[in-house]
């Protein structure tokens, strides 16, 4: 027990020593706080229609100006935090659950089935997240639920691939082979050896995926396929925003910047944890934002060509 605590302390210390860890942690905590209190503080101002003050530039009353309905852009951007965060968290949670289950099943299957399953996952990955998500939206219909399912389905193949490559690598380790030889059952091996070995990798990958999922979900909302009026997230705010470039640039910039900020916070956090948990990453080439370079969605089909160092 004390050994585990000592290790947790070590991880914590090295996390705080990463250049990006504390910054991203503070950012995420601020975003969570905003998601909790944002709607109750700014919700009223955010939906207060005032056509007399429509499409105005920044002023004392409206620091970032107003949109076409005279609603305060700053208040709307802050109040939209809750929905903009909850939806991708739900989607990536689903994707991680379904994807890692599929990946584990594939890695446990016989050689023939394994090849078919892996081929299927690779084919799905090849189409890219956006096209997959759009296809799923076509099937399940537009709207908030549709967008969450679509993003979950778009990211599940990446988790499946990640899981089965992790499981295969653990599976071929000597002690697992030995355990199998002495007759430990498959489920026993899975529970005792494989799961503890891949859980932290999966958790870290989830943060990187969360950054991407947040961006994709906002993109779907921006296209009008996700959150529908009167609900609003950062993506839906962007739609009228880009149409009024000339008049009120903040209407587009504020929500887009929030998407980028939140995405960066999650990706950096994932990167910092990965470094804290796996000290080996420290002695290799430095890369402040390594998580971006090895993001799940760009997980390559040919690992031997890959970027193992970053």
């Amino acid at each position, binding site marked *: 027990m004390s050994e585990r605590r000592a290790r947790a302390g070590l991880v914590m210390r090295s996390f705080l020593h990463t250049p990006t860890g504390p910054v991203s942690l503070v950012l995420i905590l601020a975003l969570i706080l905003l998601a909790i209190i944002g709607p109750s503080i700014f919700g009223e101002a955010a939906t207060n229609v005032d056509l007399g003050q429509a499409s105005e530039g920044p002023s004392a009353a409206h620091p970032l100006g107003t949109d076409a309905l005279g609603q305060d852009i700053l208040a709307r951007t802050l109040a939209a935090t809750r929905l903009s965060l909850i939806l991708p968290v739900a989607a990536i949670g689903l994707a991680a659950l379904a994807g890692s289950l599929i990946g584990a099943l594939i890695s446990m299957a016989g050689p023939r089935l394994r090849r078919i399953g892996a*081929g299927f996952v690779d*084919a799905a990955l*090849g*189409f*890219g*997240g*956006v*096209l997959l998500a*759009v*296809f799923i*939206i*076509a*099937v*399940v*219909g*537009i709207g908030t639920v549709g967008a969450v399912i679509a993003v979950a389905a778009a990211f599940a193949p990446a988790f499946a691939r990640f899981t089965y490559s992790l499981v295969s690598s653990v599976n071929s380790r000597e002690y697992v082979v030995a355990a199998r030889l002495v007759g430990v059952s498959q489920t026993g091996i899975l529970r005792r050896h494989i799961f503890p070995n891949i859980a932290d990798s999966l958790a870290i990958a989830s943060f990187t995926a969360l*950054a991407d999922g947040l*961006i994709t979900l*906002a*993109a779907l909302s*921006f*296209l*009008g*396929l996700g959150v529908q009026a009167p609900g609003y997230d950062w993506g839906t705010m*962007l739609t009228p*925003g*880009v149409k009024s*470039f*000339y008049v009120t*640039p903040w209407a*587009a*910039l504020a929500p*887009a*910047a929030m*998407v*980028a900020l939140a*995405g*960066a916070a999650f*990706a950096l956090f994932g990167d910092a944890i990965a470094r804290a948990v796996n000290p080996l990453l420290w002695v290799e*080439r*430095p*890369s*402040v*934002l*390594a*998580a*971006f*370079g090895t*993001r799940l969605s*760009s997980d*390559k*089909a*040919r690992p*031997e*060509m*890959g*970027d193992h*160092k*970053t």
Partner: protein
Amino acid sequence: MNPKWRHFLLRRLTRLVVVLAGLVIATFALIHVVPGDPARAIAGAQADQNAVERAREELGLNDPAYVQFGDYLSGLVRLDFGDSFETDEPVTKVISRSIGPTAELAAFGMAIILFVGIPLGLLGGALSQEGNRKFELGFSGLTGIMAALPDYLTATVLALVFAVSLQWLPVAGAATLSAAILPAIAIAVRPMAMVSRLVRIRTLDVLEQDYIRSARSKRLSPRALYGRHVAPNALAAALSVAGIAFAALVGGAVIVEQVFARPGLGTELVQGLLVKNYPVVQGIILTLGAAIVIVNAIVDATLALVDPRTLEGEL
């Protein structure tokens, strides 16, 4: 042709055909699994029961599934994807009208990745030799930020700066080739950053090989060094992710076309989804998906030419 190549091509072609078949089945299945009634969608919410039944008959939804699938296949062979629910225009016509603006974006984007991304990675690799840590950190940080920017944010900022404020480039449409520049940059930034990171690492790997070190100590000319050793490796590294980069460009185009009000496949696809115009959605997803699958196959073949080691890979 040597047997290794024949084996490789055969396997790669089989995979291409299987994935394309999967794509055709998925797009066919689309109309059968959508919530609600496609016949109701085409007839309109106010239409009476007779009109809905007529629409159902016209769509062939009363036929058995295998007959419908046969019709769908024979339609595909004749390049007939059915008619748009909205305008009764053949879907093929919608696609041929809007494929140009999207293809322009994809081509420009690929060019940016090739002519900016790869040289950037090479340069980054050459400059970060001898453990120049500060440069490495800066390079990784910068490309890391680029790889994390949502393409619609890049698009918005580019449009504000170059189209709205400076007015150097058009802000919307696809009337001139110059209108493709900003959206192409916007969708290329992320995949380009990914490629240049990979190329940099690869370049550094090659430069730190023992045989290269000894060759350099014997005054191997920089031209031979970069031309014969570094460039092919860097190209292979870039090619290994070119398929993913292309898929990212296509996905980016679907989103960014909206920012620039560009009348391409993405705009038509999104419009089709909003009004449940299933034939258009099917046709465009099929087109974009097939483009990605085919480009991937071509990339793999090219990679095998550049780097024959991949012939023995898992494929």
